[in-house]
Structure formats: structure tokens, C-alpha cells
């Protein structure tokens, strides 16, 4: 589910900072009931994650004899094997390249297009915007069969550009829908002031628009990154050669190839969760805050 398009036409008036942090005051404690409920929910949510992580620390014999027990003794071999092998890191690299390229492409192209759609006036602008917005109705799932044929005919099979370019294309609707309101909100006076000062329209774009639209850019960038990092269907169709696998594809291939070795599969799977979790914890405020801004009103 990558359609995290938030249909909005109003931009946030101030982005991202969660209440309390800005003021640096001590927050009051909540009621025990709330904490209890939250704890139960979190426990339920984290049990499967814990299962995957802890499972990697066991041996297959342990798992066969007691499927739901804790590791005893703790066995680090599986994790070390996966980390020492080249396959995991190559897949991480592939995923990273694909995700960064997709993000850069989607943000840059999306920003340029959003700028035009937000601040220029020309015939067909409405139709253009509608076309990009309608792209939400064509997720990759729907387009995958002919998309595979397009990529194949372009000679991009088994290559990272073969997944990067389509991912950029499919990230554009979300990006544009989120960015256009941001860009619309930039008051015209600023633009006029810049023109009076002698800046060209493109110069205005580089120097003023981008910083002002930064919160939206970051949100869409993060959404594009997560979407690319977790994507499975497109790599499944396009990447046939092991050396080009991205991480989701690698997890599935590893789990079926080494299905005898449940512990090893769990270790591989939990390691593949880590980049996404690290990324998320770094940008948590932006992600959640970005959703806040987009949904407000």
C-alpha cells in the first residue's frame, strides 16, 4: 500500500514540531488507563517483531523442539553469517541506490512540475494536474504487466534503472498532490519582490521556493524513499538476476532457498528490517509531522 496520497489543498502553516518539544517544558504524566491501553497495544504490535528478531538468535534444533521459546543459549552464528556474507550487503546497496535515486528523481521532477502547476497559468494546466492526480488510480499493481513489457523493450531488464524510472513515475502523483498546495501558499509579494530585485523566475525557484517548500519536500521525499525501499512487485518482475536483487526480493528468495534453515531466515529477515527502522526513527518527527501538516484542516 503505497498510496499514501493525502488529498489536501491547504498547506500547513507551521510544520512538524510536536507540541511540547518546542517549549522544552516537562510534560505531565498521562492517566494510568491510557498508559495501560497503550502498553497493551504496543505489546501486541511488537510481539511478531520480537519473534523475528529473537528467532535469529536460536538454532534450528531449538526452534523445532520449542517453536515459541526464548533463545537458550543465545546463538550469534546466524546473524554473523548473514552479516559476513556478501549477499545481504549487496542487496542493501541495491536497495539504497534504488531508493535514493527514486527519491531524488521524484522530488526534483515533482517539485519542478508542481511549481509550474502552482504558480503559472496556462491553458491545460487543470488537465495536466488532473492527469497527475488520476495517476493515483494506477498503482504499480495494475500497470505491472504492460510496464514489464515497456521496461523489457527499453532493454532495462535486470538493471536498477529498470526499477528506478518506473518508481519515480509512480511516485509523482503523490509528490505533486502534496507539493502543489505548499507552493501555492507562497505569497505573491515575495515573488514580486524577487522579480523587482532582478531575479529571473527560475532564480526565484532555486533560491526561494525550495527552502519555503522544504517541509513538503521532505515529507514527499520520505514517502518516496519508504515506498521504494519496501517495494516488491516491481523488482519481482524486473530483476531476475540475483546480483541485482533489492532487499525485499532478497528476503523472499532467501526464505525459500534456505527454508530448511528457519533460524537463518529469521536472522536475515530481521536484519532487513533494520535499515527501514533506523531510517524511520531518524525521521520520525518529519514523517508524523508531515502527515500532521497535510491532514490539518
Amino acid at each position, binding site marked *: 500500500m503505497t498510496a499514501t496520497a493525502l488529498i489536501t489543498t491547504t498547506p500547513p502553516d507551521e510544520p512538524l514540531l510536536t507540541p511540547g518539544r518546542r517549549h522544552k517544558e516537562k*510534560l505531565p504524566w498521562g492517566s494510568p488507563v*491510557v498508559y495501560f*491501553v497503550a502498553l497493551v497495544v504496543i505489546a501486541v504490535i511488537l510481539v511478531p517483531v520480537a519473534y523475528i528478531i529473537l528467532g535469529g538468535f536460536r538454532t534450528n534444533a531449538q526452534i523445532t523442539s520449542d517453536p515459541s521459546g526464548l533463545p537458550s543459549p543465545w546463538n550469534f552464528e546466524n546473524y554473523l553469517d548473514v552479516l559476513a556474507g556478501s549477499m545481504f550487503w549487496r542487496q542493501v546497496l541495491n536497495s539504497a541506490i534504488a531508493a535514493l535515486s527514486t527519491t531524488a528523481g521524484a522530488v526534483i521532477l515533482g517539485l519542478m512540475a508542481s511549481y509550474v502547476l502552482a504558480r503559472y497559468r496556462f491553458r491545460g494546466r487543470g488537465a495536466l494536474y488532473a492527469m497527475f492526480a488520476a495517476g493515483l488510480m494506477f498503482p504499480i499493481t495494475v500497470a505491472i504487466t504492460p510496464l514489464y513489457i515497456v521496461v523489457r523493450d527499453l532493454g532495462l531488464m535486470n538493471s536498477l534503472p529498470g526499477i528506478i524510472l518506473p518508481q519515480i513515475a509512480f511516485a509523482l502523483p503523490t509528490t505533486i498532490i502534496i507539493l502543489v498546495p505548499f507552493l501555492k501558499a507562497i505569497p505573491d509579494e515575495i515573488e514580486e519582490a524577487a522579480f*523587482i530585485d532582478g531575479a529571473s523566475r527560475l532564480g526565484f525557484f532555486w533560491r526561494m521556493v525550495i527552502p519555503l517548500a522544504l517541509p513538503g519536500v521532505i515529507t514527499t521525499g520520505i514517502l518516496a524513499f519508504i515506498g521504494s*525501499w519496501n517495494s516488491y512487485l516491481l523488482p519481482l518482475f524486473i530483476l531476475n538476476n540475483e546480483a541485482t536483487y533489492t532487499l*525485499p526480493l532478497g528476503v523472499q528468495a532467501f526464505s525459500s532457498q534456505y527454508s530448511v534453515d528457519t533460524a537463518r531466515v529469521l536472522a536475515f529477515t530481521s536484519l532487513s528490517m533494520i535499515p527501514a527502522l533506523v531510517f524511520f526513527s531518524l525521521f520520525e518527527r518529519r514523517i508524523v509531522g508531515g502527515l500532521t501538516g497535510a491532514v490539518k484542516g
Partner: protein
Amino acid sequence: MSVRENSLTESDTSAELARRGGGDTTVSSPPVRRRRKGLGWAGRLEVAILVGPALLVFLGFVIFPVVAAAYYGFFRWQGYGPPTDFVGFNNYLLILQDPAFHAALSHNAFIVVMSLVLQGPAALLLALLLNRRMRGQSIIRVLIFVPYVIAEVVVGVGWSLMLQQRGALNGFLENVGLGGLEQDWLANPDIAIWTLMVIITWKYFGFAVILFLAGLQGIPEELSEAAAIDGASFWQTQWRITIPLLGPTLRIWAFLSIIGSLQLFDLVYIIWGQYVASTAGTSTMATYMVSEGRNSGNYGYGSAVAVVLFLISLVVALIYQRFVLRRDTAGALTGGKRR
């Protein structure tokens, strides 16, 4: 109010912008505007340069494939060479008559409804409870959101190992003496779809909570304070004031949930594979498309299924936009409505 496109004055421009922007963009008439009636030659060039790359990529990889899917759907075609066996609407007829497709469609409908039912109220409740400044707020939000961030593939692999016949869940039940509850969580057709719902809920519950929390933060605190002064209890306030004001957020979330449920693929494919999906009662239109299309070498038929899936999503989206979201947005999706 009609807008005559070619002869707008400055004030009309900003009014139009304001209207499109939902009404609260603060735009006042600027003193001098370079562009008067339409764009000049240089302006058009700038538009082309800025929009060009995005348009090219989008047309090439999104629009063209969907149009191509519609074209291929009229053929029986194995995927190599040009399609030659024209069958008209026969593929579509086969789809509409195929009991396997009906099954997949009914599963999708079930998932759509149950996702809304299972996630909505519970997430709303939790969001209402968490909507206050308290210690640990940040950590709680992060932890709840974790499943959403993890790839569906990882979720699928992990859960399928947990739910195996001799897996962790059955092992746990046995350890705590509830061995009688052990089931074949994945293969039993009566249970499998509920298992799928549990996994889907687990993954997307956090997203709903966070989205609702975000929406709640847009509701001014003064309202609940005023209600409290007037003697309303916490729950009365929530029911009569907060939730109605949360309306737009709820509707947007429901829309995303519905569309996502219609297009569900990764989880089902990973956990149940290409064959058991139909026997375990968890096939979706997307898995049907992949197993009847690519995996069987029927690229023409698979394209037709893709078109059907697209049309269903589109119809649902348009109906939803028209009847549910109409109040909230000024036509973001059906954008460009000339009023």
C-alpha cells in the same frame, strides 16, 4: 462563477487561486504582474522545461502502460513478439465468468469492509486517548507506527513462519496449556481470511492512529475546554465535538484504506504463494492477475485483468469522491473541474 480563461485580470487570478486553494491562501493583489494574458514565448519554454521531464517519465511509465494494458487485453498473447490473436472482449467475458475471479473479488470486498471495521473504531479510540500532551507520547507514537514502516515482504515472511503448523503460535498455545486451540491458521479456508485480516490490521493500525492523531491536532483545544466548562464529560465532548470535526481526516483515511485494500498483493502472495491463495480463500484480484497472467504466460489475459482492476478502483474512487469527499476538498482528485 465562470472563469474566462484568456482574459483574466490580476484580481481574478488571485481569487481563482484562492478558490482552488481551499480558501485560505493569503494572496493579495500584487502591484505588478509580469504575466498578463496567458504566457509569452519565454514563459511557455519555462513551463516546458520544468514540466517536461516529469511529464515524460509519467507518460512513459504510467500512462502508456495502462493504455497498453487496455490494448493487450484484446488479444490472446504469450508475451513475446507482437500480439496477433485478436479476441475482442473475449478476455473480459472470461474474467467476468471465472469463478476464481468472483472469489477474488469477494475476498477483496471482505477485506475492504473488515479493514474499515477493525481498524477504524479501534484506532479512533486509541487516538482520542492519546491526544493529550503527556510523557512518553513520542515513543508511543513511534512504536505504534513501526509495522507500517516494515516491508510487506518482511511482514509476510515473519508471520508465515509464526503461523506454521509447527510454528510459534501453535507452540505457544501448547506451552500455556491451550493446545486445544491450535489450528491450521494458514490453510484452513474458514480461518485463513481472518488470519489475513489480523495481519493486515496489525500492519496498518498504526498508520490509522497516527493519521487520526494528526487530524486531532488540528482541532483547537478551546473547543473542548469550552465544552468542559459547559459541563460536558470527556466522552460527550469526543462524541459531539471532536469526532465530527475529525470528519475530513476520517474520510481521507477511509479512502486510502479502501483503495489499498482493493489493490492488496504483497502480503497474500508472500504468505500463501501463487497456488494456495485460491484454496485458502485469500486470493485477491491482484494475485489473480499475477497467477493467471504472468505466471501462466497469458500476458493478454493478465492485461485484461489489470484493466478490470483499474476500472473497479476508478469507479470506487469516483463514487467516493462524489458522494463522500465532496464536502471536504475542492476537487483534488477530479481536479480541474471548471465551475
